[in-house]
């Protein structure tokens, strides 16, 4: 009995060791294959059946014998030239674009790549499951924009309620004192409230208070509105395509300059032309109705009518390159946190006062720029403060208005 058990254990154990060693070598092969694949093959081939530049490699070990694959990887042109039918069909199907030869790959290396491709297709659920929540998390976060105003409103409401409670409590205390001993405390709550309100309305101090408050609020609203004339701060127009800077500049960290090609080189930053969208969207999210709008525009040769958000009045001259390239400012200095905006909003006021403030405070980015050497030298002769933009004509009218 005991003996039998031990053999059973032994055989189980040996089986387990065998299995473990087999799966370990398999895993090791696949790991080596993964590195090789990602370094050399992934530019043109996918492990699934999706066509990138070359065919998707799912099930390639079943489609072709390993000897053929090795020959093909070592020298595809030779296989085609040998008149192999499969190779020639493949060559013609992919517009006679030949695969790069990899003569240095050993047979075990190629086998390990195949092992990786097979392993990647055994467990395709893992990446898909990872992708789904990532897409899900982006949506709720998107709604948080513009929450500032709501916070402000709720805050004001709370303050108003507190003031109301305070006033009512004062009135009730006052009325309690005046009507002390008359037994009105036993009256129903609503009636008491109404009486208190009546007393409140009759009180000249309260009347004056309300009047003053209304005047102040009205006055502030008038002044705010007057100051807001001609200022587009907070302007966040709806665009013809629901492009999200939060996704592109935030989540995917695409540099501003990639699309706004003129920002370091010219007066305007440039709104990208459709070919720049297509650099990625020839492959990404092709089915989305918003992306379809780009395709339609290109097919019909029509411009996409993006709505300009930041627009200085025609009477003021502004040049991006002077500020970004020469001055070394970052985009967000003036445009705010674009990478967090679902819809782009004008954050800064772009008023003259706003420009002037910055020109007064900002040091000239003179380091490594020979143009400023003489100016800095002259300035430092009779000043201890560093050279500011205002010292080199940053406040001159004709610098911007001409």
């Amino acid at each position: 009995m005991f003996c039998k058990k031990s053999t059973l254990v032994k055989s189980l154990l040996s089986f387990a060791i065998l299995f473990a060693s087999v799966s370990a070598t398999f895993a090791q092969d696949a790991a080596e294959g993964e590195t090789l694949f990602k370094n050399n093959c992934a530019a043109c081939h996918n492990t699934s059946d999706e066509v990138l530049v070359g065919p998707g490699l799912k099930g390639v070990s079943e489609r072709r014998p390993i000897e053929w694959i090795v020959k093909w990887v070592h020298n595809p042109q030779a296989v085609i030239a040998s008149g192999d039918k499969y190779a020639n069909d493949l060559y013609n199907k992919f517009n006679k674009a030949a695969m790069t030869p990899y003569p240095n790959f050993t047979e075990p290396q190629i086998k390990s790549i195949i092992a990786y491709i097979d392993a990647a297709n055994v467990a395709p659920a893992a990446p898909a499951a990872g992708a789904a929540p990532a897409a899900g998390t982006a949506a709720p976060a998107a709604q948080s924009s513009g929450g500032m105003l709501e916070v402000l409103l709720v805050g004001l409401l709370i303050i108003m309620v507190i003031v109301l409670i305070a006033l009512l409590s004062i009135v009730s205390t006052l009325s309690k004192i005046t009507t002390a001993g008359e037994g009105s405390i036993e009256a129903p709550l609503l009636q008491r409230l109404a009486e208190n309100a009546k007393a409140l309305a009759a009180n000249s101090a309260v009347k004056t208070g309300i009047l003053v408050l209304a005047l102040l609020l009205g006055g502030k609203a008038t002044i705010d509105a007057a100051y807001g004339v001609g200022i587009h701060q907070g302007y966040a127009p709806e665009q013809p395509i629901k492009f999200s800077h939060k996704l592109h500049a935030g989540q995917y960290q695409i540099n501003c300059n990639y699309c706004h090609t003129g920002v370091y080189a010219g007066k305007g930053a440039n709104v990208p032309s459709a070919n720049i969208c297509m650099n990625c969207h020839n492959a990404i999210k092709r089915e989305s109705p918003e992306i379809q709008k780009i395709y339609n525009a290109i097919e019909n040769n029509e411009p996409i009518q993006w709505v300009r958000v930041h627009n200085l009045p025609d009477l003021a001259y502004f040049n991006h390159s002077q500020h970004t390239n020469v001055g070394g400012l970052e985009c967000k200095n003036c445009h705010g946190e674009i990478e967090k905006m679902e819809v782009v909003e004008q954050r800064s006021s772009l008023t003259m006062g706003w420009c002037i403030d910055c020109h007064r405070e900002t040091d000239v980015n003179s380091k490594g720029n020979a143009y400023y050497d003489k100016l800095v030298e002259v300035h430092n002769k009779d000043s201890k403060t560093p050279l500011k933009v205002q010292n080199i004509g940053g406040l001159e009218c004709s610098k911007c208005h001409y």
Partner: protein
Amino acid sequence: MFNPRIKFVLLAGVVAGLMSCGSDPNDTGTEFAPNMYHSVGYEPMTQIQGDTNTINPLGMNMRLPVKGTVARKRYTGSDSLKQAFLAQEMIAKTIPNDSISYSEKSLYNPIAATPENIEAGKAQYERFCQHCHGEAGKGDGLVAKQYKGVPVYSSDALKTMNDGHIYHVITHGKGRMWPHGSQISSENRWKIVLYVHELQKQ
């Protein structure tokens, strides 16, 4: 004068009314003297108020350059480096997209691989390439995860690519990559070439 309850409601209404003003994101708000704000001449990248552009097709304020245009403005003057940029760009423009081997043989980098130029190339790489090709050119940029098929510069097939090859790929595209010549100036493309050579060694 008023019933106190009505008075309270009125006051609340006035306050609410004041707060809800001017929150339409599609509205720029009141403009004082709009004829001083909006250009009379056609400005690029701007909607025109009133009359639309009747001269250009589809009311556009900008027009496409003639096919094959090479911007000469940046390359004029006696500066030999600028002349070289222009000459290289003229050659690159005439090379068909699929003739990458011709670019390999005929193009050369006018810029020397000095540390400053490589550093400048790195800055350009970060702006135009990094989101796909990754920080170290391993094809692992954030966008590459969606786009797929981004190569590794240091792989056997790519680590020996020369100046002309890399310049051709940036200008005309290759495989899954689309042309980026319209976005990056010739000079900056050559600087990127210098930095890609650094990444090939990694």
